Protein backbone atom coordinates (compact mmCIF):
# COMPACT_ATOMS: atom_id res chain seq x y z
CA UNK A 1 0.00 0.00 0.00
CA UNK A 2 2.87 2.36 0.76
CA UNK A 3 4.22 1.62 -2.71
CA UNK A 4 0.96 2.86 -4.22
CA UNK A 5 1.05 6.21 -2.47
CA UNK A 6 4.76 6.77 -3.05
CA UNK A 7 4.58 8.49 -6.50
CA UNK A 8 1.99 10.99 -5.27
CA UNK A 9 3.81 11.45 -1.98
CA UNK A 10 7.11 11.99 -3.77
CA UNK A 11 5.60 14.76 -5.90
CA UNK A 12 4.16 16.43 -2.80
CA UNK A 13 7.44 16.11 -0.87
CA UNK A 14 9.58 17.43 -3.72
CA UNK A 15 7.28 20.22 -4.88
CA UNK A 16 5.67 21.60 -1.76
CA UNK A 17 7.29 20.24 1.42
CA UNK A 18 10.85 20.80 0.19
CA UNK A 19 10.17 24.28 -1.28
CA UNK A 20 8.40 25.48 1.87
CA UNK A 21 11.18 23.99 4.01
CA UNK A 22 13.69 25.78 1.81
CA UNK A 23 11.90 29.08 2.42
CA UNK A 24 11.97 28.51 6.16
CA UNK A 25 15.69 27.68 6.06
CA UNK A 26 16.50 30.65 3.83
CA UNK A 27 14.66 32.97 6.20
CA UNK A 28 17.00 32.15 9.09
CA UNK A 29 20.26 31.18 7.36
CA UNK A 30 22.51 33.41 5.29
CA UNK A 31 26.22 32.75 5.90
CA UNK A 32 25.26 31.68 9.40
CA UNK A 33 22.11 31.80 11.46
CA UNK A 34 20.40 35.15 11.64
CA UNK A 35 17.08 36.56 12.75
CA UNK A 36 17.71 39.78 10.84
CA UNK A 37 14.94 39.03 8.31
CA UNK A 38 12.35 38.57 11.05
CA UNK A 39 13.55 41.69 12.82
CA UNK A 40 12.85 43.60 9.60
CA UNK A 41 9.43 42.04 9.11
CA UNK A 42 8.32 42.92 12.63
CA UNK A 43 9.91 46.36 12.97
CA UNK A 44 10.06 48.00 9.56
CA UNK A 45 7.00 50.06 8.69
CA UNK A 46 6.45 48.82 5.17
CA UNK A 47 6.22 45.20 6.34
CA UNK A 48 3.87 45.44 9.28
CA UNK A 49 1.70 47.98 7.47
CA UNK A 50 1.26 45.47 4.68
CA UNK A 51 0.39 42.73 7.18
CA UNK A 52 -2.09 45.03 8.90
CA UNK A 53 -3.67 46.00 5.56
CA UNK A 54 -3.91 42.35 4.50
CA UNK A 55 -5.66 41.37 7.74
CA UNK A 56 -8.02 44.36 7.47
CA UNK A 57 -8.94 43.57 3.87
CA UNK A 58 -9.39 39.87 4.69
CA UNK A 59 -11.63 40.73 7.62
CA UNK A 60 -13.71 43.14 5.51
CA UNK A 61 -14.00 40.60 2.69
CA UNK A 62 -15.05 37.87 5.16
CA UNK A 63 -17.74 40.04 6.78
CA UNK A 64 -19.12 41.20 3.41
CA UNK A 65 -19.06 37.66 2.03
CA UNK A 66 -20.98 36.44 5.11
CA UNK A 67 -23.58 39.22 4.82
CA UNK A 68 -24.08 38.53 1.11
CA UNK A 69 -23.74 34.75 1.29
CA UNK A 70 -26.02 33.99 4.24
CA UNK A 71 -29.28 35.19 2.61
CA UNK A 72 -28.46 33.30 -0.60
CA UNK A 73 -27.69 30.07 1.27
CA UNK A 74 -30.84 30.57 3.38
CA UNK A 75 -32.99 31.06 0.31
CA UNK A 76 -31.45 28.05 -1.48
CA UNK A 77 -32.20 25.98 1.63
CA UNK A 78 -35.84 27.06 1.89
CA UNK A 79 -37.08 26.76 -1.70
CA UNK A 80 -38.11 23.61 -3.65
CA UNK A 81 -35.29 21.46 -5.00
CA UNK A 82 -35.38 22.75 -8.60
CA UNK A 83 -34.95 26.33 -7.46
CA UNK A 84 -32.15 25.51 -5.05
CA UNK A 85 -30.26 23.72 -7.83
CA UNK A 86 -30.64 26.83 -9.99
CA UNK A 87 -29.41 29.14 -7.21
CA UNK A 88 -26.44 26.93 -6.39
CA UNK A 89 -25.47 26.64 -10.06
CA UNK A 90 -25.42 30.42 -10.32
CA UNK A 91 -23.20 30.48 -7.22
CA UNK A 92 -20.67 27.98 -8.57
CA UNK A 93 -20.77 29.23 -12.18
CA UNK A 94 -18.12 31.94 -11.61
CA UNK A 95 -16.14 29.37 -9.58
CA UNK A 96 -15.18 27.71 -12.84
CA UNK A 97 -14.13 30.90 -14.56
CA UNK A 98 -10.43 31.67 -14.31
CA UNK A 99 -9.50 34.27 -11.66
CA UNK A 100 -7.63 36.11 -14.41
CA UNK A 101 -10.71 36.26 -16.63
CA UNK A 102 -12.75 37.68 -13.77
CA UNK A 103 -10.09 40.28 -12.96
CA UNK A 104 -10.38 41.35 -16.59
CA UNK A 105 -14.17 41.48 -16.36
CA UNK A 106 -14.02 43.70 -13.26
CA UNK A 107 -11.59 46.04 -14.99
CA UNK A 108 -14.05 46.29 -17.88
CA UNK A 109 -16.92 46.97 -15.48
CA UNK A 110 -15.28 49.34 -13.01
CA UNK A 111 -12.72 51.46 -14.86
CA UNK A 112 -13.27 55.17 -15.56
CA UNK A 113 -14.67 54.49 -19.03
CA UNK A 114 -16.15 51.18 -17.86
CA UNK A 115 -19.67 49.86 -18.01
CA UNK A 116 -20.78 51.02 -14.53
CA UNK A 117 -19.45 54.57 -14.93
CA UNK A 118 -20.99 54.90 -18.40
CA UNK A 119 -24.31 53.64 -17.11
CA UNK A 120 -24.32 56.05 -14.15
CA UNK A 121 -23.44 58.98 -16.42
CA UNK A 122 -26.16 57.96 -18.84
CA UNK A 123 -28.61 58.11 -15.93
CA UNK A 124 -27.15 61.49 -14.96
CA UNK A 125 -26.44 60.26 -11.44
CA UNK A 126 -22.84 61.44 -11.69
CA UNK A 127 -21.07 64.01 -13.84
CA UNK A 128 -17.49 62.81 -13.29
CA UNK A 129 -16.54 59.12 -13.49
CA UNK A 130 -16.05 57.50 -10.08
CA UNK A 131 -12.71 55.91 -9.16
CA UNK A 132 -13.99 52.38 -8.70
CA UNK A 133 -10.85 50.43 -9.51
CA UNK A 134 -7.06 50.63 -9.06
CA UNK A 135 -7.74 51.09 -5.36
CA UNK A 136 -8.81 49.10 -2.30
CA UNK A 137 -12.49 49.33 -3.28
CA UNK A 138 -11.94 47.54 -6.60
CA UNK A 139 -9.80 44.90 -4.87
CA UNK A 140 -12.50 44.17 -2.28
CA UNK A 141 -15.33 44.02 -4.87
CA UNK A 142 -13.43 41.53 -7.03
CA UNK A 143 -12.10 39.50 -4.07
CA UNK A 144 -15.54 39.06 -2.48
CA UNK A 145 -16.78 37.96 -5.90
CA UNK A 146 -14.14 35.26 -6.14
CA UNK A 147 -14.52 34.01 -2.56
CA UNK A 148 -18.31 34.13 -2.19
CA UNK A 149 -18.84 30.50 -3.34
CA UNK A 150 -16.50 29.35 -0.54
CA UNK A 151 -18.91 31.02 1.90
CA UNK A 152 -22.23 29.92 0.39
CA UNK A 153 -21.41 26.22 -0.07
CA UNK A 154 -20.50 25.37 3.57
CA UNK A 155 -23.39 27.53 4.81
CA UNK A 156 -25.83 25.67 2.57
CA UNK A 157 -24.40 22.27 3.55
CA UNK A 158 -24.89 23.10 7.26
CA UNK A 159 -28.40 24.52 6.78
CA UNK A 160 -29.42 21.37 4.92
CA UNK A 161 -28.77 19.36 8.07
CA UNK A 162 -30.99 21.51 10.30
CA UNK A 163 -34.27 19.56 10.70
CA UNK A 164 -37.27 21.52 9.46
CA UNK A 165 -39.46 20.27 12.34
CA UNK A 166 -37.38 22.30 14.77
CA UNK A 167 -38.69 25.48 13.17
CA UNK A 168 -42.24 24.14 13.28
CA UNK A 169 -41.76 23.22 16.93
CA UNK A 170 -40.65 26.77 17.62
CA UNK A 171 -43.67 28.16 15.77
CA UNK A 172 -46.08 25.81 17.51
CA UNK A 173 -44.76 26.96 20.87
CA UNK A 174 -45.79 30.46 19.91
CA UNK A 175 -42.52 32.00 18.77
CA UNK A 176 -42.63 34.47 15.89
CA UNK A 177 -40.73 33.53 12.70
CA UNK A 178 -37.99 36.03 13.48
CA UNK A 179 -37.63 34.68 17.02
CA UNK A 180 -37.40 31.05 15.82
CA UNK A 181 -34.80 32.18 13.30
CA UNK A 182 -32.72 33.99 15.91
CA UNK A 183 -33.01 31.40 18.69
CA UNK A 184 -33.11 28.13 16.72
CA UNK A 185 -31.94 28.41 13.11
CA UNK A 186 -29.11 30.93 13.47
CA UNK A 187 -27.29 29.13 16.33
CA UNK A 188 -27.57 25.79 14.51
CA UNK A 189 -26.06 27.30 11.36
CA UNK A 190 -23.02 28.67 13.22
CA UNK A 191 -20.68 25.75 12.33
CA UNK A 192 -21.29 26.57 8.68
CA UNK A 193 -20.64 30.25 9.37
CA UNK A 194 -17.34 29.35 11.02
CA UNK A 195 -16.32 26.98 8.19
CA UNK A 196 -17.17 29.53 5.49
CA UNK A 197 -15.51 32.45 7.28
CA UNK A 198 -12.33 30.45 7.91
CA UNK A 199 -12.00 29.43 4.27
CA UNK A 200 -12.69 32.94 2.94
CA UNK A 201 -10.37 34.63 5.44
CA UNK A 202 -7.49 32.22 4.89
CA UNK A 203 -7.77 32.29 1.10
CA UNK A 204 -7.94 36.09 1.16
CA UNK A 205 -4.74 36.34 3.23
CA UNK A 206 -2.76 34.83 0.35
CA UNK A 207 -4.54 36.57 -2.55
CA UNK A 208 -2.22 37.79 -5.26
CA UNK A 209 -3.67 38.22 -8.77
CA UNK A 210 -6.67 40.34 -7.82
CA UNK A 211 -4.86 42.96 -5.67
CA UNK A 212 -2.00 43.08 -8.16
CA UNK A 213 -4.28 43.80 -11.14
CA UNK A 214 -7.07 45.78 -9.44
CA UNK A 215 -5.23 47.44 -6.55
CA UNK A 216 -3.39 49.92 -8.75
CA UNK A 217 -0.11 49.42 -6.91
CA UNK A 218 -1.40 51.16 -3.79
CA UNK A 219 -2.99 48.18 -2.09
CA UNK A 220 0.17 46.22 -1.25
CA UNK A 221 -0.93 42.94 0.27
CA UNK A 222 1.48 40.46 1.86
CA UNK A 223 1.57 38.25 -1.25
CA UNK A 224 2.72 41.25 -3.31
CA UNK A 225 5.40 41.98 -0.72
CA UNK A 226 6.71 38.45 -1.21
CA UNK A 227 6.70 38.67 -5.00
CA UNK A 228 8.29 42.15 -5.11
CA UNK A 229 11.07 41.11 -2.76
CA UNK A 230 11.84 38.24 -5.11
CA UNK A 231 11.31 39.84 -8.52
CA UNK A 232 12.35 43.45 -8.04
CA UNK A 233 14.72 43.63 -5.09
CA UNK A 234 16.30 40.15 -4.95
CA UNK A 235 15.68 40.16 -1.19
CA UNK A 236 15.27 36.39 -0.93
CA UNK A 237 15.75 36.24 2.83
CA UNK A 238 13.16 38.93 3.49
CA UNK A 239 10.70 37.34 1.03
CA UNK A 240 11.14 33.99 2.78
CA UNK A 241 10.56 35.47 6.22
CA UNK A 242 7.35 37.18 5.04
CA UNK A 243 6.18 33.90 3.47
CA UNK A 244 6.90 31.97 6.68
CA UNK A 245 4.97 34.47 8.82
CA UNK A 246 2.04 34.30 6.38
CA UNK A 247 2.07 30.49 6.40
CA UNK A 248 2.25 30.36 10.20
CA UNK A 249 -0.74 32.74 10.41
CA UNK A 250 -2.74 30.45 8.12
CA UNK A 251 -1.76 27.30 10.07
CA UNK A 252 -2.56 29.02 13.39
CA UNK A 253 -6.04 29.91 12.13
CA UNK A 254 -6.68 26.35 10.94
CA UNK A 255 -5.42 25.02 14.28
CA UNK A 256 -7.67 27.29 16.34
CA UNK A 257 -10.69 26.55 14.16
CA UNK A 258 -10.05 22.80 14.35
CA UNK A 259 -10.72 23.00 18.12
CA UNK A 260 -14.32 23.95 17.33
CA UNK A 261 -15.23 22.16 14.11
CA UNK A 262 -13.78 19.32 12.04
CA UNK A 263 -11.32 20.57 9.45
CA UNK A 264 -12.91 18.28 6.86
CA UNK A 265 -15.85 20.61 7.06
CA UNK A 266 -13.68 23.58 6.11
CA UNK A 267 -11.64 21.84 3.42
CA UNK A 268 -14.39 19.54 2.19
CA UNK A 269 -15.68 22.08 -0.29
CA UNK A 270 -14.70 22.44 -3.90
Amino acid sequence: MLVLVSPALLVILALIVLPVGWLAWQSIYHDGFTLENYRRVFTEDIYWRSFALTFEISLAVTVIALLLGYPVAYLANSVPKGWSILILSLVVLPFWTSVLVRAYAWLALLQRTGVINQFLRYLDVISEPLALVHNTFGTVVATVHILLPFMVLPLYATMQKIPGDLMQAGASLGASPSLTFLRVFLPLSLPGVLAGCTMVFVLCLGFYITPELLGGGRTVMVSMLVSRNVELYNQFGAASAVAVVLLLSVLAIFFIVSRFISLDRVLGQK
Partner: protein
Amino acid sequence: MMRTSPARIGLYVISALVLLYLILPVLIIAPISFSSARFLTFPPPSFSMRWYQQYFANPAWMQATQVTLTVALLTVVIATPCGVAAAYAISQSKLRIMRVIHMALLLPLVVPIIITAVGIFFVYAKVGLVATMPGLVLANVMLGLPYVVISVLAGLQSFDPAQEMVARSLGMNRLRSFFAVTLPQIKSSVIAGGIFAFISAMDETIVALFISGGQYQPLTKRMFTALRDEIDPTIAAISTLMTAASFMLVLLASTRQKKSG
Protein backbone atom coordinates in the same frame (compact mmCIF):
# COMPACT_ATOMS: atom_id res chain seq x y z
CA MET B 1 -45.28 27.13 6.19
CA MET B 2 -43.83 30.29 4.67
CA ARG B 3 -46.05 33.22 3.81
CA THR B 4 -44.81 36.05 1.61
CA SER B 5 -43.96 38.32 4.51
CA PRO B 6 -41.98 41.56 3.97
CA ALA B 7 -38.93 39.76 5.36
CA ARG B 8 -39.37 37.05 2.75
CA ILE B 9 -39.62 39.61 -0.06
CA GLY B 10 -36.48 41.31 1.26
CA LEU B 11 -34.74 37.94 1.16
CA TYR B 12 -35.72 37.45 -2.50
CA VAL B 13 -34.51 40.93 -3.48
CA ILE B 14 -31.17 40.65 -1.67
CA SER B 15 -30.51 37.17 -3.04
CA ALA B 16 -31.37 38.26 -6.59
CA LEU B 17 -28.94 41.19 -6.33
CA VAL B 18 -26.17 38.98 -4.96
CA LEU B 19 -26.71 36.44 -7.75
CA LEU B 20 -26.59 39.25 -10.30
CA TYR B 21 -23.30 40.43 -8.79
CA LEU B 22 -21.98 36.86 -9.10
CA ILE B 23 -22.84 36.28 -12.75
CA LEU B 24 -22.50 39.80 -14.22
CA PRO B 25 -18.71 39.62 -14.74
CA VAL B 26 -19.04 36.21 -16.38
CA LEU B 27 -21.70 37.52 -18.75
CA ILE B 28 -19.96 40.78 -19.66
CA ILE B 29 -16.89 39.26 -21.33
CA ALA B 30 -18.48 37.57 -24.34
CA PRO B 31 -20.19 40.76 -25.68
CA ILE B 32 -16.93 42.71 -25.32
CA SER B 33 -15.05 40.03 -27.24
CA PHE B 34 -17.42 40.41 -30.22
CA SER B 35 -17.26 44.21 -30.21
CA SER B 36 -15.69 46.16 -33.04
CA ALA B 37 -14.53 48.95 -30.73
CA ARG B 38 -10.86 49.35 -29.88
CA PHE B 39 -11.70 50.43 -26.34
CA LEU B 40 -14.23 49.01 -23.97
CA THR B 41 -17.64 50.37 -24.78
CA PHE B 42 -20.87 48.85 -23.69
CA PRO B 43 -23.13 48.04 -25.42
CA PRO B 44 -20.75 47.22 -28.28
CA PRO B 45 -21.18 49.48 -31.36
CA SER B 46 -21.22 46.60 -33.83
CA PHE B 47 -20.48 42.91 -34.12
CA SER B 48 -16.97 41.91 -35.13
CA MET B 49 -14.62 38.93 -35.02
CA ARG B 50 -11.48 41.06 -35.15
CA TRP B 51 -10.25 40.18 -31.65
CA TYR B 52 -10.58 36.47 -32.38
CA GLN B 53 -8.68 37.00 -35.65
CA GLN B 54 -5.96 38.85 -33.75
CA TYR B 55 -5.68 36.02 -31.27
CA PHE B 56 -5.44 33.29 -33.89
CA ALA B 57 -3.06 35.31 -36.09
CA ASN B 58 -0.61 36.14 -33.31
CA PRO B 59 2.27 33.62 -33.06
CA ALA B 60 3.02 34.54 -29.43
CA TRP B 61 -0.58 33.81 -28.33
CA MET B 62 -0.62 30.60 -30.38
CA GLN B 63 2.63 29.41 -28.83
CA ALA B 64 1.28 30.16 -25.35
CA THR B 65 -1.92 28.25 -26.14
CA GLN B 66 0.11 25.26 -27.24
CA VAL B 67 2.14 25.38 -24.02
CA THR B 68 -1.04 25.56 -21.91
CA LEU B 69 -2.70 22.62 -23.67
CA THR B 70 0.45 20.49 -23.54
CA VAL B 71 1.00 21.21 -19.85
CA ALA B 72 -2.66 20.52 -18.99
CA LEU B 73 -2.72 17.22 -20.92
CA LEU B 74 0.57 15.97 -19.44
CA THR B 75 -0.66 17.01 -15.99
CA VAL B 76 -3.76 14.83 -16.38
CA VAL B 77 -1.75 11.90 -17.75
CA ILE B 78 0.64 11.97 -14.77
CA ALA B 79 -1.58 13.21 -11.92
CA THR B 80 -4.52 10.86 -12.57
CA PRO B 81 -2.75 7.48 -12.13
CA CYS B 82 -0.69 8.81 -9.19
CA GLY B 83 -3.83 10.18 -7.55
CA VAL B 84 -5.92 7.04 -8.16
CA ALA B 85 -3.18 4.79 -6.72
CA ALA B 86 -2.84 7.04 -3.67
CA ALA B 87 -6.60 7.28 -3.08
CA TYR B 88 -6.96 3.49 -3.39
CA ALA B 89 -4.15 2.90 -0.90
CA ILE B 90 -5.57 5.46 1.54
CA SER B 91 -9.04 3.90 1.44
CA GLN B 92 -7.85 0.28 1.77
CA SER B 93 -4.98 0.53 4.21
CA LYS B 94 -5.49 0.62 7.95
CA LEU B 95 -1.97 1.90 8.66
CA ARG B 96 -2.04 4.92 10.92
CA ILE B 97 0.50 6.77 8.80
CA MET B 98 -2.04 6.85 5.94
CA ARG B 99 -3.99 9.57 7.74
CA VAL B 100 -0.87 11.71 7.78
CA ILE B 101 -0.22 10.94 4.09
CA HIS B 102 -3.82 11.81 3.26
CA MET B 103 -3.37 15.21 4.93
CA ALA B 104 -0.03 15.71 3.14
CA LEU B 105 -1.67 15.13 -0.25
CA LEU B 106 -4.14 17.93 0.49
CA LEU B 107 -1.33 20.39 1.36
CA PRO B 108 -1.48 22.18 -2.04
CA LEU B 109 -4.99 23.35 -1.06
CA VAL B 110 -3.87 24.61 2.35
CA VAL B 111 -0.58 26.41 1.67
CA PRO B 112 -1.19 29.85 0.12
CA ILE B 113 -0.30 29.52 -3.54
CA ILE B 114 2.07 32.50 -3.52
CA ILE B 115 4.24 30.71 -0.92
CA THR B 116 4.25 27.50 -2.96
CA ALA B 117 5.17 29.49 -6.06
CA VAL B 118 8.13 31.31 -4.50
CA GLY B 119 9.37 28.10 -2.82
CA ILE B 120 9.26 26.16 -6.09
CA PHE B 121 11.04 29.04 -7.81
CA PHE B 122 13.96 28.83 -5.36
CA VAL B 123 14.21 25.04 -5.65
CA TYR B 124 13.96 25.14 -9.46
CA ALA B 125 16.63 27.84 -9.62
CA LYS B 126 19.03 25.46 -7.85
CA VAL B 127 18.31 22.47 -10.09
CA GLY B 128 17.89 24.34 -13.38
CA LEU B 129 14.17 23.72 -13.93
CA VAL B 130 13.14 27.37 -14.28
CA ALA B 131 11.62 28.17 -17.70
CA THR B 132 11.44 24.51 -18.72
CA MET B 133 8.54 22.30 -19.75
CA PRO B 134 9.22 19.51 -17.20
CA GLY B 135 9.35 22.09 -14.43
CA LEU B 136 5.98 23.53 -15.41
CA VAL B 137 4.34 20.12 -15.76
CA LEU B 138 5.66 18.83 -12.41
CA ALA B 139 4.37 21.88 -10.54
CA ASN B 140 0.94 21.44 -12.10
CA VAL B 141 0.90 17.72 -11.27
CA MET B 142 1.44 18.65 -7.62
CA LEU B 143 -1.34 21.26 -7.74
CA GLY B 144 -3.75 18.88 -9.52
CA LEU B 145 -3.19 15.83 -7.28
CA PRO B 146 -5.59 16.89 -4.48
CA TYR B 147 -8.50 17.13 -6.94
CA VAL B 148 -7.91 13.58 -8.20
CA VAL B 149 -7.44 12.22 -4.67
CA ILE B 150 -10.60 13.92 -3.31
CA SER B 151 -12.74 12.86 -6.27
CA VAL B 152 -11.55 9.23 -6.30
CA LEU B 153 -11.80 8.87 -2.50
CA ALA B 154 -15.42 10.02 -2.75
CA GLY B 155 -16.01 7.43 -5.47
CA LEU B 156 -14.39 4.66 -3.43
CA GLN B 157 -16.60 5.47 -0.45
CA SER B 158 -19.64 4.07 -2.22
CA PHE B 159 -17.70 1.03 -3.44
CA ASP B 160 -17.88 -2.20 -1.46
CA PRO B 161 -14.34 -3.61 -1.08
CA ALA B 162 -15.82 -7.07 -0.47
CA GLN B 163 -16.40 -7.30 -4.23
CA GLU B 164 -12.68 -7.15 -4.82
CA MET B 165 -12.16 -9.81 -2.16
CA VAL B 166 -14.53 -12.07 -4.05
CA ALA B 167 -12.59 -11.57 -7.27
CA ARG B 168 -9.36 -12.37 -5.46
CA SER B 169 -10.80 -15.44 -3.77
CA LEU B 170 -11.71 -16.62 -7.26
CA GLY B 171 -8.03 -16.52 -8.16
CA MET B 172 -7.44 -13.06 -9.62
CA ASN B 173 -4.39 -11.26 -8.32
CA ARG B 174 -4.76 -7.89 -6.67
CA LEU B 175 -3.79 -5.90 -9.77
CA ARG B 176 -6.18 -7.75 -12.07
CA SER B 177 -9.04 -7.58 -9.62
CA PHE B 178 -8.50 -3.82 -9.31
CA PHE B 179 -8.68 -3.30 -13.06
CA ALA B 180 -11.51 -5.78 -13.62
CA VAL B 181 -13.74 -5.06 -10.63
CA THR B 182 -12.88 -1.80 -8.85
CA LEU B 183 -11.81 0.54 -11.62
CA PRO B 184 -14.94 0.15 -13.79
CA GLN B 185 -17.08 1.12 -10.80
CA ILE B 186 -15.11 4.23 -9.88
CA LYS B 187 -14.45 5.19 -13.51
CA SER B 188 -16.66 8.26 -13.34
CA SER B 189 -14.92 9.79 -10.33
CA VAL B 190 -11.53 9.06 -11.91
CA ILE B 191 -12.57 10.92 -15.07
CA ALA B 192 -14.05 13.78 -13.03
CA GLY B 193 -10.82 14.06 -11.00
CA GLY B 194 -8.79 14.13 -14.22
CA ILE B 195 -10.97 16.88 -15.66
CA PHE B 196 -10.57 18.99 -12.52
CA ALA B 197 -6.79 18.52 -12.72
CA PHE B 198 -6.96 19.68 -16.36
CA ILE B 199 -8.94 22.81 -15.49
CA SER B 200 -6.60 23.53 -12.56
CA ALA B 201 -3.58 23.33 -14.89
CA MET B 202 -5.29 25.42 -17.57
CA ASP B 203 -6.17 28.21 -15.11
CA GLU B 204 -3.00 28.13 -13.02
CA THR B 205 -1.30 31.54 -13.08
CA ILE B 206 0.76 32.36 -10.01
CA VAL B 207 3.27 29.50 -10.09
CA ALA B 208 3.69 30.05 -13.84
CA LEU B 209 4.46 33.73 -13.21
CA PHE B 210 7.50 32.73 -11.19
CA ILE B 211 8.82 29.61 -12.90
CA SER B 212 7.89 29.91 -16.57
CA GLY B 213 9.71 31.94 -19.16
CA GLY B 214 11.05 32.14 -22.70
CA GLN B 215 9.16 29.95 -25.12
CA TYR B 216 7.50 27.95 -22.34
CA GLN B 217 5.08 30.58 -21.09
CA PRO B 218 1.49 29.43 -20.69
CA LEU B 219 -1.49 31.51 -21.81
CA THR B 220 -2.25 32.75 -18.30
CA LYS B 221 1.22 34.25 -17.83
CA ARG B 222 0.97 36.19 -21.10
CA MET B 223 -2.57 37.30 -20.21
CA PHE B 224 -1.41 38.53 -16.80
CA THR B 225 1.41 40.57 -18.33
CA ALA B 226 -0.94 41.96 -20.98
CA LEU B 227 -3.50 42.95 -18.35
CA ARG B 228 -0.87 44.75 -16.30
CA ASP B 229 0.24 46.85 -19.28
CA GLU B 230 -2.88 47.70 -21.26
CA ILE B 231 -6.38 46.38 -21.69
CA ASP B 232 -6.65 44.85 -25.12
CA PRO B 233 -9.96 43.23 -26.16
CA THR B 234 -7.94 40.26 -27.50
CA ILE B 235 -7.91 39.19 -23.85
CA ALA B 236 -11.72 39.20 -23.91
CA ALA B 237 -11.67 36.83 -26.87
CA ILE B 238 -9.21 34.50 -25.13
CA SER B 239 -11.18 34.74 -21.87
CA THR B 240 -14.40 33.81 -23.65
CA LEU B 241 -12.76 30.74 -25.22
CA MET B 242 -11.20 29.69 -21.87
CA THR B 243 -14.50 30.11 -20.03
CA ALA B 244 -16.36 28.11 -22.68
CA ALA B 245 -13.74 25.35 -22.39
CA SER B 246 -14.00 25.25 -18.57
CA PHE B 247 -17.80 25.13 -18.62
CA MET B 248 -17.90 22.29 -21.13
CA LEU B 249 -15.37 20.33 -19.06
CA VAL B 250 -17.29 20.92 -15.81
CA LEU B 251 -20.51 19.84 -17.49
CA LEU B 252 -18.76 16.70 -18.69
CA ALA B 253 -17.37 16.04 -15.20
CA SER B 254 -20.72 16.53 -13.47
CA THR B 255 -22.65 14.26 -15.85
CA ARG B 256 -19.91 11.69 -15.20
CA GLN B 257 -20.29 12.04 -11.44
CA LYS B 258 -24.06 11.71 -11.65
CA LYS B 259 -23.76 8.46 -13.57
CA SER B 260 -21.65 6.99 -10.78
CA GLY B 261 -24.51 7.86 -8.40
